[in-house]
């Protein structure tokens, strides 16, 4: 930690001559016990994309909340077009043309697309009633401008995830935004959808909008950003033009130390076959999935969102029912009709949706960890608290969990630590096969490397791992073999001889 940090700090030079539409000057924000932001200055220029980079908890979200009027700065000023302004309420920020697209923008399934876009600021007609005609027309225009072919009168629930995302963007643009903040917009998108988002960002740029882009993915940042600002511990560590830095520079600034983005090397010594799946089929979600898995192997599943990967994994775990086909574990045929059956047979599943499926956020860490292992920490059905804490401690220690106490609610932990709790919970059941669905989604770089290293360690110890991932570097770096799925079917199986990023993408997209 004590290496020369000064190296990393670049001079705070003028980013551009063009006047900023929105600017923070020496903004400080203090919460009880922590200084969330310290003298932060940031300029957003029309027609330029500024990438906001930093580990989870570095202060990125606080900046977004100040820019959108959710928090008030304790010190420093906000300038709009060079004029000092305050945003006492979120409405004030949106009136100044600042709008944000959050990781999970709240949308309403039962309302129409147009109603979602204009909720709260719908055009009014006679008697103050909503003018549906104008609203639908305006929605059409906005959707058209971002290249979305969506009928504004459709109900939102009938749209796919990617289109819902476009509606969220349309909603952000419906307020005549001049500054668009995108908070991890690609987190739930597949490769093709991300490409479309890039095009959208380009078109917003050409319309002269200033864009603040928050992302954990470096390839994205280098692809679309003009400028960068790196946060660490609530301070700006460096900023400037993206063309002046490499990804290694950014990582160094973010973490204050060298973190190799290289994936852990491991000895692959495959053991005997532990799982055999034969022509597994679901009426609507997936069809004819067959593969084998060996002890100590990491099998990657790659595909676009909606390719049926998660649905298939959830079928293996007993959530998705009405499936046909056979599963053999260690050559014994098994029937999995519920997650409890799966756990009994040694199959566990770390879901993508941590908050809803992976963890129970309002229960303490130790109770989350012991939930599937209650039989192990009790005698005749009665809980033994000492055993319970010991189990929690044993399994979190290996993962280097950080928490105030085991009594802390999981909801109060960072994304990375929540993921560690979920993984620890399953390891405590001593499984044979662990399925990881997007294991590092929304996890900061430091924790990401820890999760990867741990996966490698588990595989070396003989655990069989299935990893569903949409991040190409992760799939390439971690897997021994990769199965590519498209539209519910296995398209191909790639091993180290033909595992190339281009091949993956081609098969997944069906080109």
């Amino acid at each position: 930690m004590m290496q020369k940090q000064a190296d990393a700090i670049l001079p705070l030079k003028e980013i551009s001559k063009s006047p900023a539409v929105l600017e923070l000057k020496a903004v400080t924000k203090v919460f009880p016990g922590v200084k969330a932001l310290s003298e932060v200055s940031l300029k957003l220029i029309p027609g330029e994309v500024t990438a906001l980079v930093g580990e989870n908890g570095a202060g990125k979200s606080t900046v977004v909340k100040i820019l959108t009027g959710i928090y008030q700065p304790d010190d420093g000023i906000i300038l709009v077009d060079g004029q000092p302004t305050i945003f006492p309420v979120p409405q004030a920020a949106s009136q100044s043309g600042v709008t944000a697209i959050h990781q999970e923008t709240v949308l309403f399934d039962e309302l129409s697309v147009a109603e979602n876009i204009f909720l709260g600021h719908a055009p009014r007609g006679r008697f103050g009633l909503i003018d549906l005609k104008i609203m639908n027309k305006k929605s059409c225009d906005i959707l058209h401008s971002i290249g979305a072919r969506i009928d504004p009168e459709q109900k939102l629930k009938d749209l796919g995830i990617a289109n819902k995302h476009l509606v969220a963007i349309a909603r952000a643009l419906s307020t005549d935004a001049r500054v668009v903040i995108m908070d991890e917009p690609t987190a739930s998108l597949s490769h093709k959808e991300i490409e479309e988002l890039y095009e959208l960002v380009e078109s917003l740029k050409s319309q002269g909008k200033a864009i603040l882009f928050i992302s954990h993915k470096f390839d994205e940042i280098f692809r679309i950003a003009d400028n960068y600002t790196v946060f660490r511990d609530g301070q700006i560590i460096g900023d400037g033009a993206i063309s002046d830095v490499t990804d290694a520079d950014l990582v160094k600034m973010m973490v204050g130390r060298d973190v190799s983005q290289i994936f852990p090397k491991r000895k692959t010594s495959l053991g005997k076959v532990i799982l055999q799946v034969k022509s597994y089929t679901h009426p609507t979600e997936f069809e004819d999935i067959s593969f084998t898995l060996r002890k100590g192997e990491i099998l990657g599943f790659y595909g676009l969102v909606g390719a049926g990967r998660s649905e298939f994994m959830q079928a293996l775990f007993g959530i998705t029912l009405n499936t046909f086909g056979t599963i053999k574990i260690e050559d014994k045929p098994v029937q999995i009709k519920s997650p409890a059956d799966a756990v009994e047979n040694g199959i566990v599943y770390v879901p993508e949706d941590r908050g809803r499926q992976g963890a129970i956020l309002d229960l303490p860490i130790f109770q989350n960890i012991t939930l599937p292992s209650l039989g192990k920490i009790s005698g005749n059905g009665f809980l033994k608290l000492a055993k319970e804490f010991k189990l929690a401690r044993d399994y979190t220690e290996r993962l280097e969990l950080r928490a105030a106490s085991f009594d802390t609610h999981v909801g109060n932990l960072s994304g990375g630590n929540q993921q560690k709790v979920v993984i620890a919970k399953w390891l405590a059941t001593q499984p044979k096969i662990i399925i990881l669905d997007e294991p590092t989604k929304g996890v900061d770089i430091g924790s990401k490397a820890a999760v990867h290293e741990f996966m490698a360690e588990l595989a070396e110890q003989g655990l069989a791992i299935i990893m569903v991932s949409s991040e190409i570097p992760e799939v390439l770096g971690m897997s021994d073999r990769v199965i590519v799925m498209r539209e519910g079917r296995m398209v191909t199986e790639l091993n180290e001889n033909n595992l190339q990023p281009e091949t993956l993408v081609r098969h997944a997209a069906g080109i």
Partner: protein
Amino acid sequence: MTISSRTIPDRLRSPLEQRLKSWEALLLLVAICIFAANSFASPYFLNAWNLSDATFNFTEKAMIAFAMALLIISGEIDLSVASIIALSSTAMGAAVQMGMGTPILVLIGLGVGLLCGSFNGLLVTRMGLPSIVVTIGTMSLFRGISFIVLGDQAYRGYPSDFSWFGQGYVWWVISFEFVLFMVIAAIYFVLLHKTNFGRAVYAIGNNPTGALFSGIRVQRIKFILFILTGLMSGIAAICLTARLGSTRPSIATGWELEVVTMVVLGGISILGGSGTIVGVIIAAFVMGLVTFGLGLLNVPGIVMSIVIGALLIGVIALPRLWSVWRAR
């Protein structure tokens, strides 16, 4: 320096400290205040036999409330409990007319409760129907059967040894019902707070999807909770019928809401996921003391329900008002 989990403490606040700042502590304070107020208000209150009589105001409802507490923590509800009492009592009354003895009556009482609970449970867990709708339906159904059988008649003539369940005393002023209430309270305390089953109930109430994804057999546990609630209603039916010595179809009318009130007053979140049995025990005493105290002062029944309603809203609103006021 890396922080390893070796340095993570089990707990930051001791269990004792948590208990002192809890809902249960506040409720206990309310109970003590009501007890004191009652002692001042009526000279007849501080009398062992009168206090013993007071317990009958809550023992039967509380037996159901414990099972209901678990059900509400798991995110479900059963509004048919009072109607189960009616059906169960009617079945026992019919058996009396056929000359059955006390042991058979008890078995019938428990059996009807069990069957009604299973019926609710099956509809909710197998058919995936919302429990509030199912049990509003069975609330009408169970009592409706009772009305068809009895009309404006009543069953009487329960054997004298049967009446002991509602009128008997185990020792001095300690009634059988009160002892049963204490035993059931202890069983539910252990079940909810000390067993795997109870832990699973909390997990389900906090996040049913997360519990399912953690390998908990969610539907099975919910089904058991419905059966338990039905069974407790059967036990309450035995006690109440024995105490009244007769069965009318209108028996225990409106009890479902009093039971739910008791549970919520006890600090069980109506949204599920939190609350304790100790809270429900204290809430049972609070409701019993209030109704009995007002009864001694000859306050009419309708005013009593106003007072209980005000108490419920007051006790639930005060802590929130207090925290809002402190945040300013």
